[in-house]
């Protein structure tokens, strides 16, 4: 199963043009390498401050664009990782090992399970399959790459 590990923004990460502390970058890099070596890290990215982003507000048919920055730092996301592990507990164990990136020492990381296709109802209905089978005669034959 997969989890998205979401790092929340702090006043530091929201500072325009501010790059993370090199020492922290180093520690974070080491940590990410550990995840990579363990074969659990599928993807990761850091987000620029919200001043470089925007929000699109939906109200019925109308769309209103609100430019960043946004003030409520705790509600914002500063970065994420995608981990592939066996259980929520395993994801928690990995997250607990991460360095503390918050300059005040206070911060929060959220772990959320990603929907997998198996969680949804059948992808192909019986009719869709029948249709595909009927169309088979027109399709090229193939033996490889099941």
């Amino acid at each position, binding site marked *: 199963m997969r989890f998205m590990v979401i790092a929340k923004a702090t006043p530091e990460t929201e500072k325009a043009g501010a790059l993370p502390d090199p020492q922290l970058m180093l520690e974070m890099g080491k940590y990410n390498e550990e995840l*990579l*070596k*363990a*074969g*659990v890290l*599928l*993807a990761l990215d850091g987000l620029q401050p919200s001043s470089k982003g925007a929000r699109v507000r939906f109200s019925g048919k109308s769309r209103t664009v609100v430019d960043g920055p946004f003030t409520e730092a705790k509600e914002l996301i500063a970065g994420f990782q*995608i981990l*592939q*592990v*066996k*259980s929520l*507990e*395993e994801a*928690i*164990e*990995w997250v*607990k090992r991460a360095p503390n990136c918050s300059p005040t020492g206070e911060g929060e990381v959220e772990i959320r399970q990603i929907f*997998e*296709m*198996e969680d949804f*109802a*059948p*992808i*192909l209905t*019986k009719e869709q*399959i029948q249709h*595909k*089978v009927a169309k*088979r*005669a027109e*399709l*090229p*034959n*193939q*033996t*490889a*790459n*099941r």
Partner: protein
Amino acid sequence: MAVSATDPHQVTHRTIEAVWRIESARVIAGLTRLTRDFDLAEDLAQEALVAALEQWPQSGIPDNPAAWLTATAKRRAIDFFRRNAVAKRKHEELARELEALEQSSPDLDATLDNTISDDLLRLVFIACHPILPTESRAALALRLLGGLTTDEIARAFLTPEPAIAQRIVRAKRTLADKHVPFEVPRGLEFAARLSSVLEVIYLIFNEGYSATTGDDLMRPALCEDALRLGRILAELTPAEPEVHGLVALMEIQASRTRTRITSAGELVLLFDQNRAQWDQLLIHRGLTAIERAHKINTTRGPYLLQAEIAACHARARTPSETDWHQIVILYTELAQISPSPVIELNRAVAVSMAHGPQAGLTLVDALASEPSLARYHLLASVRADLLYKLGRHPEAHTEFERAAALTRNNRERDLLLARAASCEADPTKRS
């Protein structure tokens, strides 16, 4: 508010299992180097796990659970050697070494990072040693490297648990009897041993890939276990193109998992799959792994070639966009380095897609005398399809019926009989 996971009363077995899954391979690898005996190392690690299960629910999870497990296992090793009178001097020596290591500072532990990687790689090579039957290698790898229990392995392989336990015991005895050293093979032996490791990982992957909807979830999970082992190996041996090739092949195949089986458990062939549902993250990872292999050198082994064929399909947004000329080149190269009638048949299909049905048929007909394919329904069905495309419908009809008689899959048989019937019904048929 939820309670902190370090709260003593909240420490569950699931958390300890998670720690075990993360740490067990490294703990066992480190202990194997120290004790020179990986069977003993695994026993000691298991004892440490039992101690954790007893103590952590009361004391809470230690800050560094890996260090706790290793330290506990080392202490048990020292006790074991003290108790054991056999070869006393050697064991006293080991006990002293272990004590010295136990007193080593955390700084030293950090510099031991490389040693840990080396130990882990040695463990990979032992678990996948070619003197063991393939299925024993797979069980041992999942147990020692993947942190799976015997019960989980048994469920995944649809085998009774005592049989798996027996398989593991016998494998360990064989390794001990043959005095298999705890080392990374060198020189010419390295390539052969590495290919044994890759074979095991791909076998585990395919066990999971062949699972169907009704199966125990442990079966499809084998794909993830194999991918994890492959990804770990890729970081341990970053200079081996075939390792990246295998990882790429598995990532790209796994990207199609959600589209290749219907809820009714029926297989959906590549051309019928909904490509919009392919997992783009895994495809991207697969393509990146191929690039990594290309950066090392220009030689292409069988896994890398298969990965590149899979990549040709992954890159095509619709079946008609498939780069068949490239696939022909790749199959031709694959047939040269690992000749097999099945690969030749696949090549013939690719040739027919790239150069037309007649070119494909010529290659297929050349395979007709191949004894290993005499009862292979896909040869007949490919031939039938090519004959049909060439307008040779009566011959196609006979061949579809032959293919239908050879297949053991009911749904496929129906499909082939339907196609046979369509040859007859076709008003444009030539005689």
